[in-house]
């Protein structure tokens, strides 16, 4: 057996080129990078808000356990995405330093790692917390890896509109972990993230349009151009502003949340307006970067206020229908 060289098969032709099993130089940090830690942190945060908002209570140990396995499940879907898109990642500067394009971890190894984590996180969540949250986590992983990464992303410029649902599920999973059910309140949280995702992601796509074009991904700026994308961003921003206020309108949040959501929504629209009116070139890029950064802040602030309100039990100015 000593003289045999193992070949690692990958579905990706690019990844197969020169793929030979060499002793690995991968460190634990490389494996952690496969989990998309920044995305994971947003998932954990929004899931925590869903968990705290739900009626009833969850034992802190079980709450931590639920968050841990939701994070691992999210990381698994990120790793599956990196495995499938390794050839695309290699063509884009933003993603070229990921472990597979860098040749640090073999594609087949990433697939095994991701599938193991996906199954493990779902089974553990089901055994230790409850079956509904586990089922929702399983569906989220499937949606992100198969519906978004494999099906939608390479085939339609509306990929992120539908695919955004995957990132919107965590508060619903968190809610289900505490209450064992799903209600309108986490669905509203889902809706906020769902409507927030297109303008957030298209702002980034505007900046990276050339790279997406080179990689053959039909992102909206590539297919419809800059101006149409900026128009769509503005449209979704107008939609997001009122959607952000819904938790207060439905009586689930206090006046503090309403004021924050209205202010942040107005700033979001303003930022999108500035982008839509920016002249082509550097001005557009600057405005898109600003909107991208602000969009992250927007979601963080809204969910942080919800979290503080729920944790502190504030109900000042809450509407009762």
């Amino acid at each position: 057996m000593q003289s045999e060289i193992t070949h690692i098969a990958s579905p990706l032709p690019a990844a197969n080129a020169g793929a030979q099993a060499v002793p690995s130089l991968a460190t634990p940090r490389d494996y952690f990078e496969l989990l998309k830690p920044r995305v994971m942190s947003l998932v954990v945060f929004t899931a925590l808000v869903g968990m705290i908002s739900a009626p009833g209570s969850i034992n802190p140990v079980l709450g931590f356990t639920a968050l841990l396995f939701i994070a691992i499940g999210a990381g698994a879907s990120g790793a599956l995405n990196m495995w499938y898109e390794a050839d695309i990642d290699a063509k884009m500067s933003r993603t070229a330093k990921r472990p597979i394009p860098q040749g640090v971890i073999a594609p087949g190894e990433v697939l095994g790692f991701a599938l193991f984590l996906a199954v493990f996180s779902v089974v553990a969540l089901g055994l230790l917390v409850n079956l509904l949250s586990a089922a929702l986590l399983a569906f989220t992983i499937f949606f992100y890896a198969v519906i978004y990464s494999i099906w939608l992303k390479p085939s339609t410029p509306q990929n992120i509109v539908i695919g955004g649902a995957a990132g919107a599920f965590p508060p619903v999973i968190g809610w289900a972990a505490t209450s064992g059910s799903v209600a309108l309140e986490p669905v509203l949280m889902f809706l906020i993230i769902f409507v927030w995702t297109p303008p957030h992601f298209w702002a980034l796509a505007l900046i990276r349009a050339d790279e997406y074009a080179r990689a053959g991904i039909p992102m909206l700026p590539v297919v419809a151009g800059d101006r149409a994308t900026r128009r769509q961003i503005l449209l979704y921003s107008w939609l997001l502003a009122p959607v952000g206020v819904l938790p207060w309108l439905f009586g689930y949040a206090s006046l503090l949340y309403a004021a924050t959501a209205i202010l942040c929504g107005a700033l979001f629209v303003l930022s999108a307006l500035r982008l839509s009116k920016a002249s082509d070139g550097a001005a557009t890029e600057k405005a898109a970067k600003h909107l991208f950064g602000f969009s992250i802040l927007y979601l963080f602030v809204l969910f942080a206020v919800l979290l503080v309100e729920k944790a502190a039990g504030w109900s000042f100015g809450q509407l009762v229908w």
Partner: protein
Amino acid sequence: MVTAVDEQRDQKGIVLTPEQQKARRQRSIALAILLGLLVVLFYVVTLVKGPGVLNRPL
């Protein structure tokens, strides 16, 4: 064609370079720590859930 793997072979098979050994050691330690933490977590969750540990409501 001589590959990196061929260059690392001798009669004892593949001999790891110091960097590869270091990376493998780091991976082994990380795995050991993670497994240990999981054992502790499952133990604590079992204590928390008590006799209801096998009861898995929706």
